[in-house]
């Protein structure tokens, strides 16, 4: 894959297995392959969407990147502020510390992610304090600036989270993530807990902040309409693997993997004149502890042939990079011959 200068993060063959233990001696009898050999890259200033159904490993992958989890294998090459390439997977706790401020997270649940006993000043100011800004006056100024940045009034600084609505709380969460000037922001379902009328406000804010601060987003979500709106490129995960990754509009218009196409057709469109949901995906998502042989998707795939039952397809590039496009990658034996319907 590319190793151009502007790559901020390159993930190679990332694996995260959770052992299944049984019996008196807690012997490991198997592994839940939550993230199984995943490779992708994110360039400076872009938004990469990570989509998939629950249990596909998208949250585990994003947590590995932030080193909230220690990956089982693979590399995560991050270009630090100083221009050095460091492998996040191998760093120790102490080695990670200077990098932590460069990677921040926005959480899904604006109610669970703010400590109800801390004021806004404490919540937004704490990461700064931890990262060496010990002067209280400086912090007050910076918190006020951040609150203004996310569209809240600086006077709110002494209030507690309970005084705010869901949308306002999500703004507080964003201010906290931005407090230490991160370069990579991992947003795990940042709008799925919000009301429809408030979602748009937060999406606009995220787009606006990205332009102003040159942020790079890893946007983890399951709502494909939202993902299409905010992401430059999208990676689709299924049972711990990325099955397809491409430019957003290309992926939506011309998906190459049958799973992506099925996912697209399942999106209910907010227009009664367009009937969706015509492609029925039969069966259930297999367990990542006991995935089927060959392509993990073959038991549900209407295009499966002999080879799909036996060999796992390689994640490969099918359309090479052309200008403004970072290539179309897919893991399907029949990607070249299939003509799959997209949407819009």
């Amino acid at each position, binding site marked *: 894959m590319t190793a151009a200068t502007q790559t901020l993060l390159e993930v190679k063959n990332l694996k995260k297995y959770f052992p299944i233990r049984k019996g008196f001696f807690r012997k490991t009898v198997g592994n839940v392959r939550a993230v199984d050999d995943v490779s992708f890259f994110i360039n400076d200033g872009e938004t990469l969407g990570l989509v998939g159904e629950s249990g596909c490993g998208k949250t585990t992958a994003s947590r590995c990147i932030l080193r909230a989890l220690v990956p089982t294998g693979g590399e995560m090459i991050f270009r630090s502020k100083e221009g050095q390439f460091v492998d996040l997977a191998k760093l120790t706790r102490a080695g990670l510390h200077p990098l932590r401020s460069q990677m921040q997270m926005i959480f899904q649940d604006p109610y669970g992610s703010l400590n109800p006993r801390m004021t806004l000043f404490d919540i937004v100011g704490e990461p700064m304090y931890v990262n060496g800004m010990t002067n209280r006056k400086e912090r007050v100024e910076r918190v006020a600036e951040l609150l203004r940045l996310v569209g809240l009034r600086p006077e709110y600084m002494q209030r507690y989270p309970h005084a705010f609505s869901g949308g306002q709380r999500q703004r507080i969460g964003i201010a906290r993530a931005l407090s230490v000037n991160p370069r990579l922001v991992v947003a795990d379902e940042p709008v799925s807990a919000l009301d429809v009328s408030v979602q748009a406000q937060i999406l606009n804010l995220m787009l606006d902040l990205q332009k102003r601060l040159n942020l790079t987003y890893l946007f983890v979500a399951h709502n494909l*309409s939202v993902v299409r709106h905010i992401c430059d490129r999208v990676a689709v995960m299924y049972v711990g693997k990325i099955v397809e990754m491409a430019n957003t509009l290309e992926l939506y218009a011309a998906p190459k993997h049958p799973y992506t196409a099925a996912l697209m057709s399942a*999106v209910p469109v907010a227009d009664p004149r367009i009937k969706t949901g015509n492609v029925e995906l039969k069966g259930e998502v297999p367990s990542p502890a006991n995935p089927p042989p060959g392509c993990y998707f073959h038991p549900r795939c209407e295009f499966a042939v002999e080879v799909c039952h036996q060999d796992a397809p390689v994640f490969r590039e099918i359309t090479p990079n052309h200008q403004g496009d970072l290539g179309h990658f897919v893991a399907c034996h029949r990607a070249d011959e299939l003509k799959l319907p997209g949407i819009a």
Partner: protein
Amino acid sequence: MDNQSSFLLSVRDLKTYFFMDEGVVKAVDGVTFGVNPGQVFGIVGESGCGKSVTMKAVLRIVEPPGRIVNGQILLRCANKDVSGCDTVVDLAKLEANSKEMRDIRGAEIALIPQEPMAAFSPVHTVGDQIIEAITLHQDVSKRAARGIALQMFKDVGIPIPEQRLDEFSWQLSGGLRQRAIIAMALSCHPRLLIADEPTTAVDVTTQAQVLRLLRRLQEQRNAAIIFITHDLGVIAQMADYVMVMYLGLVMEEGPVDVIFHAPKHPYTQALLRSIPTITMTPRINLPTISGSIPHPFNKPRGCPFHPRCEKAMAGKCDVRVPALQAIGEKQAVSCFLFHDVEVTT
């Protein structure tokens, strides 16, 4: 809006309040609507709009400190009276735990709840719970009830139904659990099915399966569905008729095509504009609705939407509450932009 002679459910001026120590929350504050047999009636709204409380009031399962303080909930029952006319019961007048109400719940009106995990008891098998529901409402033996349950499982497309009947809810996947709930809800042939956010907890592919299943069963059995959701996409795909609620009041109602293609109320319009769709240009700023939904304790005076409304008229919208009035043949809107009728108290 509803046709008096043919309705299945007719709710008139329903008010459900919650009497808390801190004050009174007017969760549903004068809602009128009618559902016809075989219709998919969508109720759409954001949190706190009263869509779920309306449904709970219809089933008479509003929990204290909540209470129905006003209104009628008329249900046309299947059984005929002596003169051969349909019997119409006012559910609001019945005792919540009376025999009549318990006979109606499950048999005439069934519920598909949001969280299928919480809806099943974890210590009884799924089959036992469905058999219990069947024997409660139908005069059949346990063996026959099991046969009905098995057939229901087949109808909703559960693979290896014999085995699944004897499993516990936690052994089923999310999609299967939702199907089992649908099987249970349909087991007594209800004529009205209330689906409260039935697909919010499941994935998009499972959602498509469940929606297709509901559509198919609804057409086969000609049951009416009240479909409650906040997802405008799901409403557009499922409903025949849509009612838009905001803070306990109906903002607008009409056939689904009219609501999505010719919305009149500023709230409906703003809501539809603010969702990203799969046909619009990505990465542009979405038109938003300013502010957020007010806390139920400090609802604004006048039209509940006026503080967030771009077209609010000072001295009018912030003082008086607009009534829901028919505009044209099909649509009804509660907004002073279109009429001058206010709610009389």
